[in-house]
């Protein structure tokens, strides 16, 4: 159908559009359409977003998702190019402090009205909500939550070490690793060699030793905390962990070691909850491994928060605006969050979703319980290794120190503390 727009009609249209609140207008007669970019192209991530797209189409929308495979930064390069060209997607993946940083370079959509209509703010953890409303207004919506410091234990390695309980503190963890080593588990810690992997080893150590120190050093970059005794203790613990890892992984991801992990050749994996989805996708059974919260010296679970989110970019086209409204409603919908998390292995953002039903794993239930506990004890903190605590530049400078420390065993813990403080100073 050819679209003809006369000047008068256009004027009338814009007058009407201006008179109505943004989202009431968007839900008018036009067919909602959504242009979206994300890095989720394959595996459980790809499956989840495809399922979300199906739901969008069921509601009468046109789903135009362009995945950019690879690291998040590669998706960002596409986003940057589109923003500079003046043609941002209606909605894109973005998370953590990057939401605030990017919202400064292009106008975003004010979602306050839809969020209020859904009563969403009451069911989102406050620290998380803050990240998605940088100027006091909701401009992005979290989609799913992972903890980056979950502890995956290989059942076969546990059997070898005659252990039946997951370790609670770092001392328990170190004991169990020694036992596994003695019982013939070649590498008590299963690992990858990527930068994020090394970063996770550090953040899990520090947050497990002291969530307070973690908040001050990693999230607030407090100078005194960055040079504090907990930092050195964290580097000492990280060195122990790296000594139990396989040094031959090169720069490969942790996923290549999953078979050795399940076989009991490697014992424990410190990884985000997404590893459950990856293990399931690779054909391993849920009873091959146990999932527990990462070690915490005060006995209460520490939750290193990582949350994927969508940010909504301002567009003039009415069909895209309608698409944004529909997408926002879907992302906040408990049924959609349930569907999404059950595919990827994450937990829902909404704290009021019931995880007792079928389709949820014990690991997910334990993760959700850990989040509840951690929030109650003020031990839910933002992940540094996965770009939730700081912007990319600072994160990368800090991970440089962690990854060098993981691979170079001649660096002493106290040297690492100094280097980290310098790296933070240098990129501020």
């Amino acid at each position, binding site marked *: 159908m050819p679209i003809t727009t006369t000047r008068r009609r256009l004027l009338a249209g814009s007058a009407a559009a201006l008179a109505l609140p943004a989202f009431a207008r968007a839900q008018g007669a036009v067919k909602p359409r959504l242009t979206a970019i994300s890095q989720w192209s394959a595996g459980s991530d790809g499956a989840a977003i495809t399922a979300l797209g199906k739901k969008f189409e069921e509601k009468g929308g046109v789903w135009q998702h362009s995945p950019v495979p690879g690291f998040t930064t590669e998706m960002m390069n596409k986003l*940057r190019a589109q*923003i500079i060209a003046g043609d941002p997607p209606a909605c894109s993946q973005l998370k953590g402090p990057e939401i605030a*940083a990017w919202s400064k370079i292009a106008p975003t959509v004010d979602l306050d009205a839809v969020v209020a209509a859904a009563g969403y703010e009451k069911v989102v953890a406050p620290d998380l909500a803050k990240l998605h409303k940088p100027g006091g207004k909701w401009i992005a919506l979290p989609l799913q939550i992972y903890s980056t410091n979950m502890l995956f234990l290989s059942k076969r390695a546990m059997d070898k070490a005659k252990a039946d309980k997951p370790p609670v503190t770092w001392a328990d963890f170190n004991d169990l690793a020694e036992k596994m080593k003695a019982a013939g588990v070649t590498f008590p810690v299963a690992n990858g060699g990527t930068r994020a992997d090394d970063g996770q080893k550090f953040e899990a150590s520090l947050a497990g030793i002291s969530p307070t120190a973690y908040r001050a050093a990693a999230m607030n970059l407090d100078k005194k905390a960055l040079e504090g005794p907990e930092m050195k203790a964290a580097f000492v613990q990280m060195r122990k962990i790296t000594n139990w890892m396989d040094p*031959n992984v090169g720069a490969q991801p942790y996923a290549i070691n999953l078979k050795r992990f399940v076989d009991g050749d490697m014992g424990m994996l410190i990884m985000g909850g997404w590893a459950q989805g990856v293990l399931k996708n690779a054909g391993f059974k849920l009873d091959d491994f146990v999932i527990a919260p990462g070690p915490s010296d005060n006995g209460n679970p520490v939750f290193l928060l990582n949350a994927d989110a969508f940010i909504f970019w301002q567009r003039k086209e009415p069909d895209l605006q309608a698409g944004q409204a529909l997408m926002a409603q879907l992302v906040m919908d408990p049924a959609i969050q349930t569907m999404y998390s059950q595919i990827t292995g994450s937990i829902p953002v909404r704290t009021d979703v019931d995880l007792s039903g079928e389709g949820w794993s014990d690991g997910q239930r334990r993760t959700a319980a850990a989040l509840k506990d951690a929030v109650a004890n003020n031990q839910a903190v933002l992940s540094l290794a996965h770009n939730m605590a700081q912007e990319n*530049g600072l994160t990368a400078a800090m991970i440089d120190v962690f990854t*060098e420390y993981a*691979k*170079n065993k001649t660096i002493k813990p106290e040297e690492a503390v100094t280097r980290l403080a310098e*790296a933070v100073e240098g990129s501020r």
Partner: protein
Amino acid sequence: MSNVVSTAARPATSEMVRRLPEYLMIWVPLLLSAAHLISFSIWTIWISFTPSTLIPVSGWVGLRNYNAVLASRNWQIAFDNLLLFGIAFVLLSLITGLALAILLDQRIRGENVLRTIFLYPLAVSFVVTGTVWSWLLNPGIGIEKLIHDLGWSSFHFDWLVNRDMAIWTIVIAAIWQSSGFAMALFLAGLRSVDTDIIRAAQIDGAGPIRTYVRVILPTLWPITITVVVVQLQFAISAFDLVRALTNGGPGIATQLPALVVYDLMFQRSQLGRGAAAAVLMLLILLAVLLPYAAWRYVQRRQATHA
């Protein structure tokens, strides 16, 4: 009178018309690429003095980006690696290239086949080279495992994951890739040596080694300089090979300047600093190319005066 003028002008105009395609062929692409190159270089230099992060913005921060880059461990490691990699790679590829050329120069059978084999790596992209060597050099699956499986279990070759030796794996892969190029140039040089000179040396009683060292090799030095310059500019801009082979690891032990630029611009979203690092790379490149240009200029001057 008018007759004379027209006859004088006609050949000039027709000459112009006749040569027009030539001028178009040469000057249009040349000016386009020069404009392209120069405008982007100037733009990068400008960005390196601005506080740009996520996207380019205007503003002036003086040398702040340069100071930050020069003070970062990443850049210092990258610069040290560049010195080591540049020197080792250029020298070793010269030596292997020359050795291969001299061996091929012995009028051996199957020269064409061998020449193709040695040149072939040049046709492979650096990403492929890097990936293949990353498998070969991985102690868990590559050469070390092969030798272990053959029975020599104390054999040790873990350079790829050894932070002190990892830079040498890049040297190895780069030499495998490009010593064929040096060989081709040297071979052409060897073949162009005047046979009369060689005969004269033989008549004077020089053996084959002496003939090479004293007579043939000295005629090759202009080619040597060309090879050095071409290889050096490759070494300075090396990116894809390292990214595929070690990705700057283990840790940050094999960083190179081009990796730092990419990392700053596209991973860390620090456009200003990335641009500053790129300008520093350009300066390093100029440090190689300017002396070469000056040398060429002096050569030409001497040639015309003679």
